């Protein structure tokens, strides 16, 4: 079962290795991890997609919570949220197939961001399904390289998953 965790952490050196180390050390399966600072530069948000049964996910949350640099953890899997991933795909593209590729790019509302003699770089954003779909559609042309960011996520509506929920002050 895949769960999406939204984790607020102190924006300090070493925090990523604390979190990543915890996952590998305790044998948790991490699907993706994306991190960047929030509206408050002292705080970063990690979006972690983790695979495991209920007991494991519970342990992941509890163990993450033990890290002093972790401020708050929310399992947003069952909440309405916008989840996005960015992918860059370098695909073989002889002039003869470029038209076909451009159609696919259109359908997925992706973009061509670089053109070389025999290849293109395509940029797409979306949820994991869409990203998988565009990758699959381009595979017949020959994919040379793929770079994915991992998922980032935000709750829909006015609700935030900020610090107010943890009851110890707001994120200003």
């Amino acid at each position, binding site marked *: 079962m895949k769960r999406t965790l939204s984790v607020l952490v102190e924006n300090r050196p070493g925090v990523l290795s604390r979190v990543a180390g915890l996952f590998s050390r305790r044998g948790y399966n991490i699907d993706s991890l994306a991190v960047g600072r929030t509206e408050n530069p002292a705080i970063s948000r990690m979006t972690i997609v983790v695979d495991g049964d209920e007991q494991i996910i519970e342990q992941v949350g509890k163990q993450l*919570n033990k*890290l002093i640099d972790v401020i708050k953890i929310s399992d947003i899997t069952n909440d309405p949220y916008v989840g996005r991933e960015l992918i860059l795909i370098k695909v073989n593209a002889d002039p003869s197939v470029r038209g076909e590729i451009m159609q696919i790019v259109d359908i997925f509302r992706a973009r061509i961001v670089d053109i070389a003699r025999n290849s293109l770089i395509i940029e797409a954003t979306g949820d994991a399904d869409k990203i998988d779909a565009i990758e699959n559609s381009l595979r017949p042309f020959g994919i040379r390289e793929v770079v994915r960011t991992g998922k980032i996520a935000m709750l829909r509506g006015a609700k935030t998953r900020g610090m107010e929920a943890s009851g110890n002050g707001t994120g200003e």
Partner: protein
Amino acid sequence: MAQGNSGRTGARAVIEALLDEGVELVFGYPGGAVLPLYHELARTPIRHILVRQEQNAVHAASGYARTSGRTGVCFATSGPGATNLVTGIATAYMDSVPVVIFTGQVPTRMVGSDAFQETDITGITIPITKHNYLVKDVEELPRIVKEAFYIASTGRPGPVLVDIPKDVALAPCRAPVPDRVELRGYKPTYQGHPGQLRALARSLGEAERPLIFAGGGVQVSRAEDYLRQIVEKLQIPVVTSLTGLGSFPEDNPLSLGMVGLHGKPCANHALMECDFLMGLGVRFDDRVTGALEKFAPRARIAHVDIDPAEIGKNVRVDLPLVGDISCILKELLPLVEPAGHGPWLKRIKELRNLYPLTYGRGGEVRPQWVIERLGEMTRGQAIITTDVGQHQMWAALFYGFTEPRTFISSCGLGTMGYGLPAAVGAVLARPDKQVWLITGDGSFQMSMAELGTAREQGLPLKILLFNNHSLAMVRQLQHFYYERQYTAIEFTGNPDFVRLAECYGAEGLRISKQEEVVPVLARAMGNDRLTLIECLISPEEIVYPMVPEGAALDEMILPE
């Protein structure tokens, strides 16, 4: 101290923060990168205990912390000094001991360049510290030291390491030591959830065969008195984990002693028969549970712990309760009705008679018997530190602990070599108590250089060394699991330990016959000096009971 604020360096600020915390002792070992701290330390009344190896500085700080209830402090230098700490830190981490460790580091501009005596000690110790810091800005140092002590000693305690590059220690520092700690990511829960508390009270009232399983958390939280009150009010028998020894007096009729792999037979049987098990400050470690799927098969399990991550980690828990054991037991007391549990206590008595704790066969001097005599002669009130091996289990089974914070042993990590430095820390923490180290020839040789520390500091500690010329606990494993093919367990080059003691100005005594036991112990108890007793025993002794791998707790191997 007379220095004006203008001359205040990072190192000075650290020492100020130590004074602020009321630190009276530092255990350590110097080297180039940590000299700024030493230079400032020497100008204060804080006493420094120079050990013989950095690992032992942490062990000594741990022995000090566990016996005093205060936070232990260590200093070490960068590189090899720092890496030598690692086993000590891991040992303290596994037993949740509050220790703050300061390491010197190469200057900031050289960090990351594989400079002379550089190691990434914060990277190395992430998995074995509660938290650690590499200090980059000297103005953060006072706050960091304050946080380090706060984190180490609150919630579930543990070691915290502060790595200070030499230039940071020497830089001018203006920031004051803050009065308060503000950590938005760290708020331990002390008060129990009222609804869960009521549920716990109800379950205790309904149980017919309740059992309390007390662990190290009881002593960390200083909850012994509340525990005794609960036990007396509800007439519930108590088993303990290894770290839980001393949390409930073993001379109380409701005490069943240690449970687990080498637990007392009656304690193990009670655990299998109880219908309600209340775990207090325990981890349900694999050495306690035996085969998980056969653990406490008839019981609903309540688990009280300050660390939510322990709850539900190993065993299924029906009633979780996060919080400080003292707070929780105090609130629980008025919620429960007095009870008698007559039939259950009758059954317990039956179990005691059916399954007494016996030694099995052995040599001329029986270590179990020696430890029983020591327990009697010290009325179960000495502080006992141990090493790891058969002697550790015999100390746990046969001494008869009656007071909290008197059994000091590497329980979670099982670190040989812990005992002597831990005893050094214990004597310094509790000069009013007699401190005994119960050790084996293997373990003792891992840290016996600390005899020099004990001598230097004039510590009248007593060492009872069971010499079987072997790593007999490993021999026991080979006996049961490896076709009695004994490999790499015999020592033929042991020193004459009595003479070794004498070399260190200690009194050396030997026990090789049963009739020597009491007089030699008495002599050691009366002489007020550093004393080592070498007690010669058979390597063929077996620690009974023993739960075989994969078996349930009541499927113990007992002596014929």
